[in-house]
């Protein structure tokens, strides 16, 4: 492998990490505030993909623009789902199997609504931008991936600002740290949970719309990405937004560079294998490595 190859792979990995971060961060905020493992995330990502597809087919709307529109749309969808179903779950400070199964049921319903409407043929969104390339000396970059990366980083920056500068963000961070203390401090837990759920689903929709520009999709679209999102949020320590960015980068690097060692047909097994290994070996995420060392020192 030459240095140029290495550089190409590295850039590809970083571009991939951007979209990975957006697709995982929604799960992280929902988990952090509500302690719900959102399996339905996959279903909402799939819906986001078809949202962009329909807007492009019917109104010839640019998919990147559709991804931006997906945010308010799926925010409202998320709030509706929370109001209809999720809020009836018993409150718990640990993830419960009940909530896991409920989210799984919602995923099943979404997925099969998808099959009812769009059938099981693969769809894709092809724009003039899809195959365009940017040449930077010896390095070749897909311009679409670059655009998606920029959009993804934009999303993360907006989220970071929302979490650090607004009252809502402050209550989200408080509830992630400690629910009881948050409640004592006068935070409306129910309202924050509702908004957080809406935001998590909104990010799923945006991620789905962005992913739809890169890959072909069918109603089972979200599943492999769901597992990757799990790996990422576990790597990131489950509850931190900056951890998600780190986890996304690690997974993207591992996936991209494993092409050199693992035959292509076994490629999908990497994230699944990694999921199990990471859960068992590093349940506290990457940050726990430092924490452990600090404790030892």
């Amino acid at each position, binding site marked *: 492998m030459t240095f140029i190859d290495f550089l190409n792979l590295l850039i590809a990995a970083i571009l991939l990490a951007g979209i990975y971060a957006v697709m995982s961060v929604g799960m992280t905020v929902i988990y952090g505030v509500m302690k719900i*493992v959102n399996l339905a995330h996959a279903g909402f990502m799939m819906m986001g993909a078809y949202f962009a597809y329909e807007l492009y087919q019917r109104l010839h709307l640019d998919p990147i623009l559709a991804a931006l529109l997906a945010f308010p749309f799926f925010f409202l969808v998320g709030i509706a789902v929370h109001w209809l*179903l999720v809020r*009836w*779950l018993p409150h718990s400070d*640990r*993830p*419960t*199997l*009940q909530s*896991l*199964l*409920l989210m*799984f*049921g*919602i*995923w*099943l*319903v979404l*997925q*099969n*609504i998808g*099959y*009812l409407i769009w059938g099981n043929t693969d769809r894709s969104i092809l724009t003039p931008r899809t195959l365009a390339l940017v040449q930077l000396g010896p390095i070749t970059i897909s311009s679409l991936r670059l655009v998606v990366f920029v959009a993804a980083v934009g999303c993360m920056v907006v989220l970071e600002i929302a979490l650090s500068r607004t009252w809502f963000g402050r209550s989200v961070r408080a509830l992630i740290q400690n629910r009881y203390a948050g409640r004592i401090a006068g935070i409306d837990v129910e309202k924050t949970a509702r908004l957080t759920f809406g935001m998590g689903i909104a990010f799923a929709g945006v991620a789905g719309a962005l992913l739809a520009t890169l890959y072909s999709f069918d109603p089972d679209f979200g*599943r*492999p990405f769901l*597992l990757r999102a*799990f790996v990422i949020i576990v790597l990131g320590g489950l509850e931190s937004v900056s951890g998600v960015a780190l986890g996304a980068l690690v997974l993207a690097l591992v996936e991209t560079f494993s092409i050199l060692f693992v035959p292509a*047909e*076994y490629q*999908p*097994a990497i*994230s*699944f*294998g990694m*999921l*199990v290994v990471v*859960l*068992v070996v590093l*349940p506290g995420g990457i940050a726990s490595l430092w924490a452990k060392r600090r404790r030892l020192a």
Partner: protein
Amino acid sequence: MSTAALAPSRLEARAKTLLPWLLLAVLALLPSAGLGANIIRLFFITFVWVTTSLGWNLLGGFTGQVSFGFAVFYGLGAYTAALMIDRGVNPHLSFLAAGLLAALASVLIGLPTFRLRGPYFAIATIGVSEATRVIMNNLAITGGASGFRIMEHRPFRQVEHYYTALGMAALAVAVSFLVMHSKFGMGLRAIKQDEDAAADLGVNPYAYKLAIHAVAAALTGMAGGVFARYAAFIYPQGVFAFQTSVYILLMPVIGGIGTIWGAVLGGVVFGIVEEQLVANFPELHLLLYGSLLILIILAEPDGIAGLLGKLFRRLRRLTRKNGVHSGSRKADEVLRRVGRG
């Protein structure tokens, strides 16, 4: 309490012990009733599903460890039996081997994943089952993604398949019953309620989970093998599919998680509904089950069995009120007071 007041409940208890045997007898005699091949097939498939449902229920229902990975055992069982039967081994021996291999796999999977708890275990099992499917899709011995056709050097007799599956389902019920009423089963229930408390009481949760995982996997693997012999053609995207794991999980949850009859009921309902819906509306099938799952989680955690139980009790109360027992009601009241006094 007098005998008069006890009589109905004693009768009920006797009926409860007799009913399974009666059911078994009826099912054993069924093929001689001259039913069509289609009906027999429906029963066969239902027995296979009931077995997997009971298997999952041992781990998910009794022990509270929800797994999304039972397709691994189902698929491994199917391929083990298929490869052995294809090489001329006695089918029933191959089913046993299928169960054993699935149990072995369950230990290998359980050793790392049972270090995780609750939802983390559930998520890890998704990873395990997806990884297994990818590997099986590319292995040479299984024929890869194009599937595996089983050549059995014996004439096909549907009734034989029927009895194999019936025997297997009966075995699954018996195993569930034995586990439920043993000290081991009590340990499992303790783990479900509170793992730390169970550990304090001298139950080793890790070992208990590994053991029940193996039993559950063995039943599921056998079911896979029995199904493979009947289907005569299997492929990784079928038996190892995430969908298969989903089916195996949905049946006991919808039927009534943690109870034997709930799991059986779930398998039966699933088998019949699948038969009616899948052929015509495959999407509606899972749409229905997804909605049912949501309803059951939010409204009736004990599933269809719990719902039926409630209905039954309400019905009995109604018949009492409406004077079926009106003659003895006053006497009951008096006797109860006497008994208390």
